[in-house]
């Protein structure tokens, strides 16, 4: 059929089963927005900033497992979206981001709102396209969705000049893709898998090292089965929180810079690391030469470039975690769980020595208490997004996660301002769950304009601001490593968060006691309107344990021991 480029975009989105587009219109993308106006197949959510549109699409994708879609205009619309693209790239989130571009005849003339968008997005996307002819649109969009979701997922950016969206051409979306140069390797080499299983059977202190790839590959329940059948303890990366349930006896907790003592010690004492969809990030490994020093390494990853990039793998297995774990399960009879009883005991002892904990020794609320309390009250019924900083680490440490895709946070890029829009996307993707955003008094001011979106579209995100009047994480480093010179991190001057929420039509609470917090949370859930709960917390609380940057994983700063009150 002969249709316009703009109509093609709509048809392609419908064919891909897209039900929600997050975006912000502008000059160069107007032809497409005109077609959005005319259709009823998917809903469009107008965010109040392009960055938020992309973060919302990320949240939507992470909660649903589907490709997130965002739409923006050229120039500043696009540059505002770049942070979102980079965030999705670092955390392997499948997105298709469509931007308008100035007409072809004006490209290269420094036209109004012109920027070399594909030049900018090249290094922060899995792939990108500048579409120069409407005849290519069907193929490009189909490729974009396929590339975003397959292999190691990631964002794909499609830049479409305004005259291409106006151009009439033949459109056919029902064809088979043939990408000669892109064939993700999903099936692990059976010989390598067998060798890995034999190595596990021989090991005395093996350790599962679970990463976010398990969530991307929807393999959490297979991994749970493998962990239980083998009786091998497991640590989770930040990105893998929820792969095992918090109450799983074999889960040691999170490892890394703010990992638990037991998790970091287990990783330091293990004789075989079984890495599943994890990439040995520097926040996980600490000093790399000391990381799991005496251990062999099995590394399962769909991205060959992740294997032996930082830690050399003795048993590299390129493939989709789900496929590989299923094959491992078939051979799990090789492994006798009883054999690891004393290893599990050792780890239990580590955990008893220095459990993840905090002291309730101040008049002000402890931020960790707030997170635990939300966990007690809402538990599995909430999805948890976060911004970036101390509150983010405390959320990862103290929330009782029960399932994959429950925890949505900016891991790789560490984007302040991610949480609120992401939590909106999460709510849109799974409306049956309560959508919580744990945030800080620093982070929430980046993208607080999304209150308007949340009010307009009735997206009842509960933003819990752990307010310590500091850029807390930077303040913590300044306290510990810069001789308490708190340079530009004191946020004593701040808005009235209650009035701020109310100004947009949301609801707000300022909370200083446990009882007040319970009331505020209960009312927020019941009223089903976007809310800010501004919780006054202890100002100088530090995230502990902590592995100083570049230090060895086993050299942790620990919570000071005190008599419990």
């Amino acid at each position: 059929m002969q249709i316009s480029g703009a109509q093609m975009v709509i048809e392609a989105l419908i064919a891909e089963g897209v039900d929600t587009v997050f975006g912000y219109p502008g000059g160069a993308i107007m032809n497409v927005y005109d077609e959005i106006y005319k259709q009823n197949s998917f809903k469009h959510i107008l965010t109040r900033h392009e960055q938020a549109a992309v973060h919302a699409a990320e949240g939507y994708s992470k909660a649903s497992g589907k490709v997130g879609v965002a739409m923006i205009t050229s120039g500043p619309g696009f540059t505002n979206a770049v942070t979102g693209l980079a965030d999705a790239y670092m955390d392997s989130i499948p997105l298709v981001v469509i931007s308008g571009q100035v007409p072809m005849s004006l490209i290269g003339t420094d036209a109004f709102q012109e920027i070399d968008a594909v030049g900018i997005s090249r290094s922060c996307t899995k792939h990108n396209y500048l579409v120069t002819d409407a005849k290519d649109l069907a193929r490009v969009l189909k490729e974009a969705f396929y590339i975003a979701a397959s292999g190691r997922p990631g964002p794909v950016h499609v830049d479409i000049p305004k005259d291409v969206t106006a151009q009439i051409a033949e459109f056919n979306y029902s064809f088979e893709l043939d990408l000669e140069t892109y064939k993700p390797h999903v099936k692990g080499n059976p010989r390598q898998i067998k060798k890995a299983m034999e190595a596990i059977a021989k090991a005395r202190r093996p350790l599962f090292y679970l990463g976010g790839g398990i969530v991307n590959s929807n393999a959490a329940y297979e991994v749970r089965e493998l962990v239980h059948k083998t009786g091998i303890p497991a640590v989770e990366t930040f990105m893998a929180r929820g792969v095992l349930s918090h109450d799983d006896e074999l889960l040691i907790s999170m490892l890394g810079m703010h990992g638990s003592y037991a998790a970091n010690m287990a990783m330091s004492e293990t004789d075989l690391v079984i890495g599943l969809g994890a990439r040995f990030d520097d926040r996980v490994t600490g000093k790399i030469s000391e990381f799991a020093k005496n251990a062999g390494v099995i590394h399962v990853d769909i991205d060959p470039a992740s294997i032996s990039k930082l830690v050399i793998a003795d048993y590299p297995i390129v493939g989709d975690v789900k496929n590989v774990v299923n094959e491992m399960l078939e051979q799990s009879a090789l492994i006798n769980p009883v054999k690891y009883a004393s290893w599990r005991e050792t780890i239990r002892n580590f955990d008893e020595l220095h459990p993840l904990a905090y002291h309730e020794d101040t008049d002000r609320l402890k931020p960790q208490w707030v997170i635990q309390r939300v966990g007690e009250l809402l538990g599995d019924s909430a999805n948890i997004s976060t911004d970036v900083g101390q509150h983010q680490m405390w959320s990862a440490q103290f929330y009782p996660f029960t399932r994959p895709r429950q925890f949505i946070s900016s891991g790789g890029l560490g984007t302040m301002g991610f949480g609120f829009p992401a939590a909106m996307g999460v709510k849109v993707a799974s409306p049956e769950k309560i959508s919580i955003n744990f945030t800080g008094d620093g982070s929430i001011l980046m993208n607080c304009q999304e209150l308007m979106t949340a009010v307009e579209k009735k997206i009842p995100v509960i933003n819990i601001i752990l307010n310590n009047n500091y850029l807390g994480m930077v303040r913590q480093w300044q306290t510990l490593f810069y001789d308490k010179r708190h340079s530009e991190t004191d946020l004593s001057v701040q808005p009235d968060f209650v009035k701020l929420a109310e100004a947009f039509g949301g609801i707000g609470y300022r909370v200083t006691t446990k009882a007040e917090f319970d009331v505020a949370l209960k009312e927020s859930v019941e009223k089903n309107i976007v809310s800010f709960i501004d919780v006054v917390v202890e100002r100088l609380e530090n995230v502990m344990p902590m592995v100083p940057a570049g230090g060895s994983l086993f050299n942790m700063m620990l919570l000071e021991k005190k008599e419990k009150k």
Partner: protein
Amino acid sequence: MQDENARRVISVIVVNEASVLSRITDLFSGRGYNITSLTVAPIPESRYSRLTIVTSGSIRVIEQITKQLHKLIPVLKVYEHADLVEKEMTLIKFPVSENITDIATLCAAYNGKIVNVGENIIIVMVADEPKRVDNFLKIINKYNPKEIVRSGAVALER
């Protein structure tokens, strides 16, 4: 011991499309890899181009480079050459006042010849292994070369 900064030659077959060269060079600059030389030209009667990249680094770095190159969507194949035939072409401009007979003889020894003669200058070309080209350039230094252009290496697996 493996030389940490050994010279390596990598060939990359890519779909011949807009901005594919930027994808390759962005990858090198973004990840902090060196490019000593880079040549690119379409492969006749196909939709592909071939790049020959001379770089340097340890085995692990080179392994990362080849894997990262592979991840780029328009990349079809990546070869890291061990046993290869490698050639580089070079053009050099001399004043005619220099000893042209000597220069011509030297050129011949390096698969070259005089390719242009002007009123004041001559231009010669040589085409040889990059190491031999280095050598040649050292030798002809005494004939006061005015300009030197090296093409960068091209290579084929034996």
